[in-house]
């Protein structure tokens, strides 16, 4: 049983009328791993997560969670998944503690039992001082932390996090990262989307890059960097220095400059005229992301 992946998708498809939001993707999420689902807005990440939660019907292909097709997901299985959705869909009028107690009942937990767990959950997200504050009084970061605490109430084995740290200050992000790694160490499985590449690099064992409903590539952060952007980026502003022949390097024109992706920066730098101005840095996941999904803005 331990070999069964927590999530397995084969040819997973989602159509909204004519529009195909997810176009037959295959992927797996193994137990006690953190898998990142990265892609621009509208890539199909949230739709995929909603299908896993049973909040969106599957239009085609197969999708199993804990080895059971989502169409036949039982209450018991659903209780083993925690969801941190993109919006802070908390109950604004009641207190932090009451939010957890109310939510716990949705998992079939008696209020007394949940009440005992509230301090532990709030301490985990450093919200213990806010137990009796109403949600309306919390800052954005506190609300986010409360949504995460709430997702853990059902003793979830799988936690799905849709942009858990968007809009948060660095302190809150660092705390959330630390606690998510703790969850993984406890054996929980995490599926995460984020627009922060440093976050993905830090948390994820494996990354799936998705765009227009299709998987573009997947691998560990390092594998993706090696495969797509070598190890180093050298950026030369246009116009290129005269006498520089760039044909033998892997390059990308980004408009006002050209990026060269190289394993050994010395090879390229040696070819440059003495007076040339360039910028050299380590390649990172952001380079991979932009290279794979393009540089166009995705506002609709």
């Amino acid at each position: 049983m331990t070999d069964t992946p927590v999530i397995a998708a084969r040819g997973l498809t989602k159509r909204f009328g004519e529009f195909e939001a997810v176009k037959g993707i295959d992927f797996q999420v193994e137990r006690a791993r953190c898998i990142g689902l990265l892609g621009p807005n509208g890539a199909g990440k949230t739709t995929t997560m909603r299908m896993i939660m049973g909040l969106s019907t599957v239009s085609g292909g197969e999708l199993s969670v804990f080895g059971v097709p989502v169409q036949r997901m039982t209450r018991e299985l659903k209780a083993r998944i925690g969801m941190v959705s993109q919006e802070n869909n908390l109950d604004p009028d009641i207190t932090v503690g009451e939010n957890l107690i109310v939510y716990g009942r949705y998992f079939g937990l008696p209020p007394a039992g949940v009440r005992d767990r509230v301090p532990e959950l709030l301490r985990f997200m450093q919200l213990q001082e806010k137990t009796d504050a109403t949600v309306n009084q919390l800052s954005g970061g506190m609300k986010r932390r409360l949504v995460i605490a709430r997702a853990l109430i059902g003793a979830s084995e799988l936690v799905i996090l849709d942009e858990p740290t968007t809009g948060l200050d660095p302190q809150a992000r660092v705390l959330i990262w630390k606690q998510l790694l703790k969850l993984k160490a406890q054996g929980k499985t995490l599926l995460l989307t984020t627009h922060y590449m440093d976050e993905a690099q830090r948390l994820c064992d494996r990354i799936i890059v998705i765009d227009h409903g299709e998987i573009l590539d997947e691998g560990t952060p390092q594998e993706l960097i090696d495969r797509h952007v070598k190890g180093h980026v050298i950026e030369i502003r246009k116009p290129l220095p005269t006498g520089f022949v760039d044909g033998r390097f892997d390059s990308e024109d980004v408009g006002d400059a050209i990026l060269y992706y190289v394993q050994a920066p010395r090879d390229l730098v040696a070819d440059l005229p003495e007076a040339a101005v360039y910028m050299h840095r380590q390649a990172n996941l952001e380079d991979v992301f932009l290279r794979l999904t393009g540089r166009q803005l995705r506002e609709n």
Partner: protein
Amino acid sequence: MAVIPIATPYTMAVTWRQYVVWRKLIWSSLVTNVANPLLFLFAFGFGLGRFIEDIDGMRYLVFVVPGMVAYSAMFAASFETTIGSFSRYFMQRNWDATLATPVTLSELLFGEVLWAAAKAMLSAVSVVIVGWLWGGIPSLTGALISLPIVFIASIGFACYGLVATSLARGYEFFSYFFTFWVTPMFVFSGVFFEIDRFPVVVQAIAWALPMTHLIAIIRPLSAGIPLDLGWAALHLSYTIALTIAAFVIAYRRTRRRMFD
């Protein structure tokens, strides 16, 4: 996923959540659900009651109190599953959060309905108490017997509201619901005068409206005059059939809207 709702612990968890929130906002809620119908009752009881001697063989106050019981329940339940449910669904994204747990959609919707019916009962009971103290209820026993029927009808009123919510794209939509559904019941269902004073076409419309059937059962009960049980059974069957149809429509539409 079963459509037919049963009051499972999960349904009750949803209803309980509404109660926890309601406790925080109790005063504004009491104004809408208790003070509002009582104002109507006083206005019509004193105002019209002075001009109208007898209606349908009973004092005007005796006539209008059960009408106000029905209206207050109808209004409270309708308001709760339209403006209230829509806010939870659309503005607070509360339904998304709930459905990410073991609670199913039919349990969520039925939890909303049960709570709306509970609020309707709060309104109805307040009107019964005030109406009785004022001398508008000759048969208190009859009025008490009518309360479970008001509850059943209120489950229906809540379901009709949910149908509107399942169709609404914004709050503007509910102006249609209140203008073409709630207000017609207020004026045509026999709250203030007998519907046989209307032209036949209007009477037909009135009998299509579920509140007309509720009033037809509870008015004789609280007035203490004999109730034709055959007719009462017919009125109740119509109410229940309409309720089930509304719940199924609301369920299907919401399901398509949220899950497809």
